[in-house]
């Protein structure tokens, strides 16, 4: 079986570049040459192609591995509908913006709005799985509708702001105002979390669904899921009661 496409950054990206078109549509069957022709908008330089910035090799297998520091790459995997994207480093803002399927596995940090919504969009990601093994910037999973966003490190403020549904797992500490204006979404906080004042405590219990969610993160993505989190107790807070109030923050507790 092919390892898919490998794209290695030729030189450091020293200014923001919009990768929103690189993995748009049905990219999984595209050859290395076809993907190399996809456009990237580099701030100040105008249109370039992926092949100008990356050495693109391999054969199509619905999988692409991006190598190099992509901290200046914005909208990487925006609108992703399928396939597997592995980023061996950090990415900039808006990774997986409005994605609807497939997986993005970011081995470093992600900038603001990972899995979130474009400013003009009503919904953030509507499906698929977005893994950020490092930290995630502000508004991760904003207005998310479906899917799974897992952050191995900490999240900046406003993770899951305005979520319509979907699940955000924060394995580190959640920044301020997580889950604000959530309608139905789930935020799973394995580290510290400040519960917004518009959430109300419901109970302390063992949600069976989290055993499946965490098992998925451990088995499929190799995230370091600890047994105390799998079998442990969680405080359930319902909210945002300033909105629909069917969302929840499940905060792990050692007690």
């Amino acid at each position, binding site marked *: 079986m092919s390892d898919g496409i490998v794209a290695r950054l030729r030189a450091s990206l020293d200014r923001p570049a919009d990768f929103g078109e690189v993995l748009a549509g049905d990219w999984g069957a595209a050859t290395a040459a076809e993907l190399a022709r996809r456009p990237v908008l580099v701030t100040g330089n105008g249109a370039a192609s992926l092949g100008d910035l990356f050495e693109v090799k391999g054969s199509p297998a619905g999988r692409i591995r991006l190598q190099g520091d992509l901290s200046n790459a914005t909208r990487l995997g925006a609108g992703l509908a399928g396939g597997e994207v592995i980023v061996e480093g950090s990415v900039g803002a808006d990774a997986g913006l409005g994605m609807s399927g497939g997986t993005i596995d970011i081995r470093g940090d992600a900038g603001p709005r990972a899995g979130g919504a474009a400013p003009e969009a009503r919904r953030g990601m509507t499906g698929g799985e977005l893994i950020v093994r490092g930290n995630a910037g502000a508004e991760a999973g904003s207005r998310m509708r479906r899917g799974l966003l897992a952050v191995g490190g900490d999240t900046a403020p406003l993770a899951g702001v305005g979520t319509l549904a979907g699940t955000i797992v924060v394995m580190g500490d959640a920044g301020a105002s997580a889950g604000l204006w959530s309608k139905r979404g789930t935020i799973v906080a394995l580290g510290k979390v400040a519960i917004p004042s518009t959430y109300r405590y419901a109970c302390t219990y063992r949600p*069976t669904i989290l055993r499946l969610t965490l*098992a998925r993160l451990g088995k499929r993505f190799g995230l370091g899921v600890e047994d105390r989190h799998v079998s442990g107790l969680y405080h359930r807070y319902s909210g945002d009661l300033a909105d629909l109030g069917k969302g929840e923050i499940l905060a792990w507790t050692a007690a």
Partner: protein
Amino acid sequence: MNIRGVFIEDTFAEAFTMRVARLVITGRNLRWAREAALKLTGFATSVIGCKCEAGIERELAPAETPDGRPGLSVLLMTMSKDDLPKRLIERVGQTVLTCPTTACYDGLPDAPDRVGVGSALRFFGDGFQASKVIGGERFWRIPVMEGEFLVQEKFGMVKGVGGGNFLMLARSADEALAAAEAAVEAMSSRTGVILPFPGGVVRSGSKVGSRRIKSMIASTNDAFCPTLRAITRSELPDGINSVLEIVINGTDAESIAGAMRAGIDAACREGIVSITAGNYGGKLGPHHFHLRKIMAGDTPA
């Protein structure tokens, strides 16, 4: 054919195509998973009176279950594919949803035919239910007084086989029971097989129809009843005073044949005179399990 002095009749068990679902029931510990599984598979011996046939397939270690808790796999079977979701919804709703700590998952994830179970049971949540999609599968979280009941939205359905059987003809009731217990022990916990009757054993084998009541679809198998030997056309040789039957259902004919082979071998013991099987002349059921071929190691067609 003789096995340790037990005569194996040259006959076959006639079995039918059924629809099967495999349920994985987990719990906080095996005790509670078993409580739910026992209730779910209760009163599910025969489609004649129970609308479905069900049994515990085997215990599952935590590593084998979706949520990493101890569990049991259960097979539930019906004659028609329309019946299967009805029975699943009734039984999961009444016996697993109600049972403390348990959750219920599909055990046939590769089956292309899917029937809705959680998608119907979710309405018990009265609008407070929530769903999550994990790995492409949807699960429903139904709030209950204990906490939450988790059930998978859809369950796989495949064609299976129901009605594999053999009969142990014994000199005494005690010896028939001992042989049946040994056979059940040898046939239990095999993947793809259930024994839907009490303790895996049937004492009341039936024949099609009734001599006296036309509306009855089954009545006692008088030809194998020792007490009727003198007044009916008995099939029992001299010296037989008790007969017990084991009925085997499964996901496929090969699994059933393997279980029958193990069960018959275990049943060939002191006090058993012969082993035979029930059939309808081969005209009703498409699956024929020839006892001698099975004991010779042949795989059924």
